[in-house]
Structures are given as structure tokens and as C-alpha cells.
């Protein structure tokens, strides 16, 4: 099986992120951080925070330019990501693993019960558990909504010639509010999960070395651990 190559054990470590994914991830978070900083600057333009951000970003005009350049980076990344899924075996097989199923819902309930100490068994997941899936699809869905609404606002004269004003206003409100939601999701959850939570502090190194230790894999993705080691 070809899959074996990705999952093979090497000195107690298992491959978690290919170099391609690590680069995609870096481009993604760099563009998202810049998009968030420039976007929140506009969203909170009435407060000291927004004013400070706009000042740092070189004024309102250059804030917009930085925002749009980062958006182009994100859009190209998204296109690359889709092509990668469609036309490479690696991309395709990884994508198939991240498609959500009913068991993900069950796993999340199990983990809630576990954190409430109502059960002693945490959820046992494959390579991509409900957390990874939720975050992946959250970013994917968010990027889609933000790209569509962002384009409508960017090319306002063209979009206004096609759509009624109320729809553009809706896009404006949607773009801001959805952006804020995505910001909270990523910053509160992903930062906690991958950086601040005690076992990962200061960070989960997978995003740099692409590996995860067997020991950690056993704790966090038990089904994948079982599949790789053949342990029962």
C-alpha cells in the first residue's frame, strides 16, 4: 500500500504533515494573520485599537492595500489547495480522511463527557479527528465566504452594477462579522489547542518538523496509532 510510506515509523516518530502541507499551512496562517490585523483595524475603527492598527498599517488606504494583497495570497493558496486535492494522490488521499462523518459528532460528545469527567475514555480518533476537521472546514468555509463577499466589496463598482445595494450592504456586514467569528475560532481554539494547552506548550512542533511522536499519537489519535503499530 502506498499509504504505508507516509505513515511509516521512524525513530519513534510518525509523519504528520508533509513538506507541501507545512508550506501551505505557513502561507495560510501568515495571510490570515495579516488579513485579521488589517480587517480588525477597519472593524474597530472607532476604538483606540482600530486607530492604533490603522496607524501601524500606514493609514486607511495602505491598510486596504495590505488586506487585498494578503487576500490574493489566500485565494491563490486556496486554488492551489483545490488543485492539489484534485490532481495529486497525496492531496486526494489526505482530503478523503478529513471529510466529516457521523462518528465525528459522537467523538466530540465523548470528549465533552470526558472533560466533564463523566467518562474515563477520551475520543479515539484517526489522523484527523473532529477537532482537525472542524478547524479545517471552518477555515475552508470561512475563506469561501470571505472571498466571495470580499470580491463584491473590492470591485464595488462592478458588483453594484449587477447586484442591488442591499445585497452589497449584506456582504459588507457579512464580511466584517464572519471575519470576526473566524478570528475568534482560530485564535481562541487553535492557539489554545496547539500552543497553550499544557501538553503542547509552547507549541506542537508538527507544523515545523512534520512529525508526531508515537507517544503523543497514542494519546491524541488512538485509532491512527493502532493502525500504524498494529497494537490492539
Amino acid at each position, binding site marked *: 500500500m502506498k499509504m504505508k510510506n507516509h505513515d511509516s515509523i521512524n525513530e519513534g516518530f510518525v509523519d504528520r504533515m508533509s513538506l507541501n502541507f507545512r508550506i501551505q499551512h505557513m502561507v495560510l496562517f501568515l495571510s490570515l494573520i495579516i488579513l485579521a490585523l488589517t480587517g480588525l483595524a477597519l472593524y474597530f475603527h472607532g476604538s483606540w485599537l482600530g486607530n492604533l492598527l490603522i496607524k501601524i498599517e500606514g493609514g486607511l488606504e495602505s491598510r486596504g492595500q495590505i488586506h487585498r494583497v494578503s487576500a490574493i495570497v489566500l485565494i491563490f493558496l486556496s486554488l492551489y489547495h483545490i488543485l492539489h486535492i484534485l490532481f495529486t494522490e497525496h492531496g486526494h488521499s489526505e482530503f478523503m480522511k478529513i471529510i466529516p462523518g457521523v462518528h465525528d459528532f459522537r467523538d466530540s460528545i465523548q470528549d465533552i463527557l470526558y472533560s466533564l*469527567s463523566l467518562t474515563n475514555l477520551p475520543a479515539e480518533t484517526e489522523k484527523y479527528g473532529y477537532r482537525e476537521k472542524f478547524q479545517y472546514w471552518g477555515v475552508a468555509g470561512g475563506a469561501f465566504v470571505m472571498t466571495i463577499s470580499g470580491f463584491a466589496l473590492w470591485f464595488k*463598482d462592478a458588483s453594484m452594477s449587477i447586484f442591488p*445595494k*442591499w445585497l452589497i450592504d449584506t456582504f*459588507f*456586514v457579512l464580511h466584517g462579522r464572519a471575519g470576526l*467569528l473566524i478570528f475568534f475560532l482560530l485564535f*481562541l481554539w487553535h492557539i489554545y489547542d496547539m500552543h497553550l494547552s499544557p501538553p503542547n506548550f509552547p507549541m506542537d512542533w508538527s507544523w515545523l518538523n512534520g512529525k508526531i511522536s508515537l507517544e503523543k499519537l497514542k494519546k491524541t489519535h488512538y485509532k491512527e496509532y493502532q493502525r500504524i503499530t498494529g497494537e490492539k
Partner: protein
Amino acid sequence: MKNKFHLIIAISILSVFPLSSIAGATIAIQKCMLCHGKPGFKKVEETGKVKELYVNLSTIEKSVHKKKTCTDCHADVVEIPHKQIPQKVKCIRCHFKGNPDGAPQSDKYLEYQESIHGRAVKSGNRKAPICQDCHGNHDSKHTKDVLSKVHKSNVAKTCGGCHIDIYAQYITSIHGKALLLEHRIEAPNCTDCHGEHKILEHTDPKSMVNPVNIVKTCSHCHNSVEIVGKYGIETSQVSTYEHSFHGIAVKFGSKTVANCASCHGKHNIAPSEDPSSPVNIKNIPSTCGQPNCHPGANINYAKGKMHVNPKSKQSGIIYYVAFFFKYLTLLTIIALIAHIILDLNRRSKEWREQKKKI
């Protein structure tokens, strides 16, 4: 200085009428009125222009300066008959802060000198207005006097004496009609938007009607429930504008983005129901489609509210999208914080159990 002038005048008068027992000042008026009191007293200038020189004493008696004598203002007249044409009266002889003559204590002439009118006069423009052109000369009255040229209801007409085209636009505008026809004293006249003594050209960043200040100027009334609220005019227009792309850009110094006047017009402002208003639904495409704004704007620009408040139910889908995201974001934050707390709690429990085992 002034006392010296008085002295000179008194001495000169007394030398002319040494036997007179009446106060010198009154004699001066009577003496002046010998010529200027004759109806029809006038002079034909070299240009052919007829200059009226008749002074109706009752006009002065009804003015704020009723207790003053001719030479209090026409101070360069030291002998009668005067040999030279008296100069234009300089009001700042008395009207400065700290004056001992009982004139209003004000430094407004300093503001005037910086104004477009003051600078024009200084640069030699003889048509530019000096104090008495707006305040009146022999008939100058207190600002609160309805007959004063600078009374709220007369200001537009006074400015219109020179700015005739703008006056014609103003009197047909909603502001002009409200003030002049309906006598709604809160409605703005020229000076409410342009300033009084310190009127500056609209291109000056300090001008009240410069793009960087116009929102503040209009907001003075349109953001006040006490002023416009009682006429049923929405005050939310200001805050909705401030949160729009236009408003934010203006706040951060853009001079090209639309401000109040870009869409609503200037002197000829009319309510949106009026077919002549630039914000009338039929005119919105051409208003939004101004060359430097959104060229090619079509009727789509008129489909929806202009001043959108996402927090108001009247905004329809925009309200519901904002509402949905507000609560979704709140729920998400609560859920994530709860998740973090529960996760930490469980981990510390595990850690304690592990410690016990060891």
C-alpha cells in the same frame, strides 16, 4: 487717543460757536445735519454714480448707536464743512476687547481679519465687505433685533446682497424654506454652516464646510434630537454615515470620498421626496455616478437604504445577518472558553492522579 480727539473736536467746535451753551456733541450733529439732514442731498461722482448723502436722523436714533455723535465714528472729520471726503468708518475704534466706550467686549474683528472677507479687503478688493456692509451703518441694530441685518432671519438676504446666485438657491432649499417661510428658528442660515466673522474659503481645511469638517458641521443639528428630532428628522443618519465606507474614509482624512454635501447638495438641499433632490430615488444613479465617484452607476444604487443601520430591524436581511453573527460569535466565544476551562480542569485532574500513583 479718543479723548484727545474729543478734545480737538470740542475745541474746534467751541472756537466756531464760542457763545453756545449747549453741549458740543449735539451741536456737532446739528451742524452736520445742516447739509446731511436735507432730503435729496447727494453727490454725482466722476463715474456718474449718484451717492446719496442724506442722513435720516431718526434712523440713527433707532440704532444701537443712538447716543453716539457723527464724529464718534466719522473721526476724520475735524472741521465743518469738511474739505475731504471722509474715509470709511473703522468700527474697531471702539469694537475691541477692553474698550472703555461701553461697546460690546469682543475680539471678533480679529477673526474677521483672518476671514476670506477680511483678507480680500486687505488685498485691496473694494467690493469685499467690511463691518458695516453686513451689520448696517446708521441703522446698525442688535443681532437679536428682528430689524437687524444680521438677525437670524435676515442674514441670508444680507449675504445675498453680494452672493445673489447662492441666495436664490438657498431660499428654495429645505433650510431656506424652513427658516424664512415657516420661521423655524433652528433652521440654518448662511452663517450656521459657513461661520460668522471667520468665514473661510471651502478649500481651507479649517473651513466649516471643508470636506474634513462638513460632517461635523451638519452633525451639529442632524445628530441632535433636540434640534432636528422635533421635526421628525432621523438623527441616526450621522452614525450610520460614520460607520459606512464613506464615513470611515472621511474620518481618516480622505478628501475625495463622499461627504454629506456630495450626495445631498449644498445650498439647494431638498428632502429626498422632492424630485429635484439629488438623493431622490430617480436621481440616485446620476448622483452616485458623479465622475470622481462611481461612474456608470445604475438604478441598483437606489435599491436599498442609503444610511444602513445593521442594528435596526428596518434594514431587513442586513439586520438578520448581523443579528445571526452577533449571537453565533457570542456562543462560539462562550463555547470555546468553556472548552478551555473544562480541558484544563480534566488535565489537572489527570496530572494529580498520576502524581498519586508515583
